[in-house]
Each structure stands twice: as structure tokens, then as C-alpha cells.
């Protein structure tokens, strides 16, 4: 009898507990903090589900970068008066919501328990295709993301551009083109400057490493890019560097680099391998790494841009 099942149950209880806290906490900021802790623990569940790639993404994006975003927002809104969001829900509403939530959760749990056995899987097809279009990649997730379902991935990068533009577009008209407000305080503490100076270079190296090994081991452009983004954000919070102006040509080029290169490679598919978004067998790995390198850049720039928010007319 191993100790793992007990750890699993403890982890599950802790996660559900934190989720309850996130929903039930009275104070907005407490709820935000609960959610960030929850996200970190969730990454452990992904490790237990044999999903190290997802665990890395969840830890970096789902918990880390989202955490910065939510905590910043929570801090700004937390100071506001209570009750400004509208009246608290009545008992009937609570009962209705509770019943609906119970119904959905119960039905979902029941359905999950009767998922068919043996489970259907595309793993055999993915393994077989590895000799074809996805040649030379040891990490099947990267093969799915950049080869078999590359179309989804390209579109998702377009979604990121739209999200950045959407965030910028809620700014004021007269601020358009300017830089977003700085992420940190005017006079950052020595400790945060120290942290940024020490951590950012190491983190950037690790980020590039995670991207580079992503072809064959857990990791890839998403995870590496998120780490690079986090390092840039740490540097911005310490005011070592500032968010760039949103009309800077270099920023915009970096943001579209991933989807643009992906789109061009997809369009070149018929010439290279007879089909859109297909890669020639012999060069699949270098082409995929080439595309991923630009995606790494786009992700590393897009995530901080999303956190930094709309352009601000404020100058310090």
C-alpha cells in the first residue's frame, strides 16, 4: 500500500476547500488570494494525471501570470466601497443557484464515472503518425500542437492578438499610442529590484531551455514563453524596465510574429508537402522548431501586454 492515494485525497480536499474559499470569502481580495493558491495546487494534480506539459502551463499561465493580473485588479478594486456591485442575492436566488449547481455537478460526476471502458484514444494514431507528418518529435503534445492540430494553435495565436487589441481598446482615446501604466510603484523596494536582477536572467535561461527541450521532453513554446513573460513582468514590477508604447513597431511585430510565421508556413504547405499545414517529412523537426521560436516570442510579449493593460496617458 503506497502513501500516494492518501496524498491524492488530501490534495483533492485542499483544492476543493480553496475553491469553496474563493467562492465564499466575504472580502474580494481574500477570494483572489485563495484563487491564486488554488491554481498552484492544481498544477500538482496535473502532475498526478501524467500531464507535465499541462502542469507547467497551469503553473506558469493559469496560476502565475493570471495571479499577477487578478491580484493587481483585486488590489485596485478592493479599496472600493462594498455593495457598489449591486444588491446581495436573496434566498430564492441562492436556492435556485445552489440547486442548479448541485444538479450540474452531480450529473457531471455521474457521467464521468460511467465513461466507457476501455477508453477510446487517439494515442495509437498519434504514435503511427509520428513516422509521418510529425516526424522526429519525442514530445507527442508538441507534435499535436504544431503538427496534427496546428490549425487550432495558429487560430489561438490570432485570439491572443485580438485579446491584446481588445485590452488596449478599452483605454482612453487621447492615450492611444502611449505606454500602459507602469506595473510597479514609483520607488520600488530594494528587495524587488534585487529579486528581478537575480531571478530574471536565470528565469530567462530556464524559459529558453524549456522551449528548446520541448520538442522531445515536457515543455515547449507555451511554457517557455510564459516563463519569459513572467521574467519580463518581474523586471517591469521592479521598474528596471517599463511597458513599451503600444504603437511601437517592434512590439507589434513581436506580437504577430508567431501567428504570421505559422500562417506563412501553413500556406507554404502545398509547395512543401502537398497540403496546407503539412510539413515535409525530412524537415519537419527544424520547421516546427522554427515556428515555435516565433511563437515563443509572441507569447513572451503578449502575456505581459495583457497584464499591463490599456495605454495610459499618465506619465511619471
Amino acid at each position, binding site marked *: 500500500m503506497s502513501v500516494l492515494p492518501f496524498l491524492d485525497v488530501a490534495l483533492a480536499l485542499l483544492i476543493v476547500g480553496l475553491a469553496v474559499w474563493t467562492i465564499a470569502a466575504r472580502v474580494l481580495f481574500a477570494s483572489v488570494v485563495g484563487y491564486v493558491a488554488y491554481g498552484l495546487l492544481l498544477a500538482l494534480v496535473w502532475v498526478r494525471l501524467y500531464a507535465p506539459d499541462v502542469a507547467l502551463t497551469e503553473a506558469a499561465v493559469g496560476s502565475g501570470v493570471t495571479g499577477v493580473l487578478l491580484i493587481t485588479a483585486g488590489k485596485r478594486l478592493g479599496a472600493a466601497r462594498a455593495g457598489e456591485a449591486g444588491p446581495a442575492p436573496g434566498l430564492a436566488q441562492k436556492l435556485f443557484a445552489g440547486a442548479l449547481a448541485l444538479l450540474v455537478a452531480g450529473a457531471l460526476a455521474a457521467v464521468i464515472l460511467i465513461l466507457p471502458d476501455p477508453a477510446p484514444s487517439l494515442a495509437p494514431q498519434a504514435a503511427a503518425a509520428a513516422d509521418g507528418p510529425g516526424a522526429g518529435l519525442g514530445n507527442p503534445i508538441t507534435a499535436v500542437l504544431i503538427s496534427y492540430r496546428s490549425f487550432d494553435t495558429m487560430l489561438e495565436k490570432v485570439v491572443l492578438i485580438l485579446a491584446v487589441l481588445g485590452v488596449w481598446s478599452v483605454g482612453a482615446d487621447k492615450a492611444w499610442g502611449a505606454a500602459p501604466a507602469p506595473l510597479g510603484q514609483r520607488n520600488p*523596494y530594494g*528587495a*524587488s529590484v*534585487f*529579486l528581478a536582477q537575480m531571478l530574471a536572467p*536565470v528565469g530567462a535561461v530556464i524559459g529558453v531551455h524549456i522551449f528548446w527541450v520541448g520538442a522531445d521532453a515536457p515543455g515547449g513554446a507555451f511554457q517557455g514563453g510564459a516563463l519569459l513573460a513572467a521574467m519580463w513582468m518581474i523586471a517591469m514590477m521592479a521598474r528596471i524596465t517599463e511597458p513599451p508604447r503600444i504603437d511601437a513597431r517592434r512590439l507589434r511585430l513581436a506580437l504577430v510574429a508567431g501567428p504570421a510565421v505559422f500562417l506563412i508556413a501553413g500556406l507554404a504547405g502545398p509547395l512543401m508537402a502537398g497540403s496546407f499545414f503539412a510539413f515535409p517529412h525530412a524537415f519537419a523537426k527544424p520547421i516546427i522548431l522554427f515556428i515555435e521560436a516565433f511563437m515563443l516570442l509572441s507569447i513572451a510579449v503578449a502575456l505581459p501586454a495583457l497584464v499591463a493593460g490599456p495605454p495610459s496617458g499618465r506619465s511619471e
Partner: protein
Amino acid sequence: MIALVDLFSLAAIGAGVFFFFAGTVGLLRFPDSLTRLHALAKADNLGLGLVALGLLPRADTALAALKLIVIWALVLLSGASTAQLIGRALRRGRK
């Protein structure tokens, strides 16, 4: 020899776990934020350091061992900095 290495690992990890446990108790029982912070820093720095030390002989390759040390160093760095930051924020909040 192997038994000796195992014993070393066991002792180091056990000590590490003790510090984590003590740190957690401190987090839950200490009266104010600064002392709780103090307890946490002990757990992070010493506890994790001892666990990493205990795992070192069990690493398959030199690279894996290096990664263990790097992890500890990174946690040390971020733990120390955030403790500073939280402490500073607390002091400012009190004024």
C-alpha cells in the same frame, strides 16, 4: 555503503520535514504577520535545503543534482525577497 547513503537521505529529509512542520505550526499559531513570516522563511530555507540535500545522493546524473541545487537556490532567492517585501508592506500598512 548503500545503506549508509539511504540513512543520510532519511536523516536529511526527515530533518527537512521537521522544519516544514515547525514552520507550518508557526504559521498557524503565531500571533502576528511578522512572526508568521519568520516561521515560513525557516521552513522554506532550511526545510527545503535539507530535503534537497537528502535527495542529492539519489540523483541519477550530475545534471539532475545540479537542478536540485538550482531549485533550492531559486526558492531561497524568491523566499527571501518576498519575505522582505511582505515585511515592508506590513510596516507601511501599520503607519
